[in-house]
């Protein structure tokens, strides 16, 4: 197994750990929001009840996004990437694009996990960072797939 394979295995393990942590955070966050709802009901505060219910639903929606949409975005970005077909550097460019895609997918999941933590702690449930990470991933993969062959061609490698 080459260096690239070792790195990919490490990234796959990190993905599994991050997904498990995300599920744990979401479940505990929903329980915390349920506790908030119970506290609001016990003290007769309708605002606390509404905020708790909305927070629980928000956490659920964020986790669904992380588990269903993020892998699809990562797969789509990888599938849409142009295959670098430039001589001996094609393998290098392909491996670099794959690594960027894997790191980008992890970054998206990390951003979703951060959003889940924020929502579990009662903050606003924002997926903006996850979207930003997705855009950076697609941009990085496109740059790797398109610009590297051009550079190699310019340097006379192709």
């Amino acid at each position, binding site marked *: 197994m080459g260096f690239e394979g070792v790195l990919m295995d*490490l990234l796959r393990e990190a993905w599994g750990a991050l997904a*498990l942590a995300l599920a744990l955070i979401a479940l505990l966050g929903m329980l915390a929001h349920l*506790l908030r709802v*119970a506290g609001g009901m016990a003290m007769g505060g309708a605002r606390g009840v509404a905020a708790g219910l909305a927070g629980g639903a928000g956490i659920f929606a964020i986790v669904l996004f992380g588990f269903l949409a993020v*892998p699809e975005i990562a797969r789509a970005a990888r599938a849409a990437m142009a295959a670098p077909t430039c001589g001996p550097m094609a393998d290098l460019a392909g491996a670099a694009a794959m690594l960027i895609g894997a790191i980008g997918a992890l970054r998206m999941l990390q951003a979703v996990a951060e959003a889940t933590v924020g929502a579990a702690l009662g903050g606003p449930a924002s997926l903006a960072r996850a979207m930003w990470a997705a855009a950076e991933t697609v941009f990085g993969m496109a740059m790797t797939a398109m610009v590297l062959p051009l550079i190699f061609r310019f340097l006379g490698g192709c």
Partner: protein
Amino acid sequence: MFDPVMQQILGLARQLWGFLAGLLVVVAMLGGLYYVLQGAAGASFGGSRMVSTAVLGMIGLALLVLIGFLLLPQIGAMLRSLQPPPPF
């Protein structure tokens, strides 16, 4: 590589789950007691609205505890089954 860390995190999460579940029971019991007091007060001086509010509040609290103890574990199992394999 991540397994030992995840085992530690799982242990902590289990402890936190137990703590939050216990806290939920305590809050629900105190809230139920409050609603019993409210209902008793309403019944003793003829406040039917207070009694109905107290009964509805107690039912709501019981429902919330049921959601916490029955629905949330099911949602957790669903999330575990939804956990995606690495897309790369």
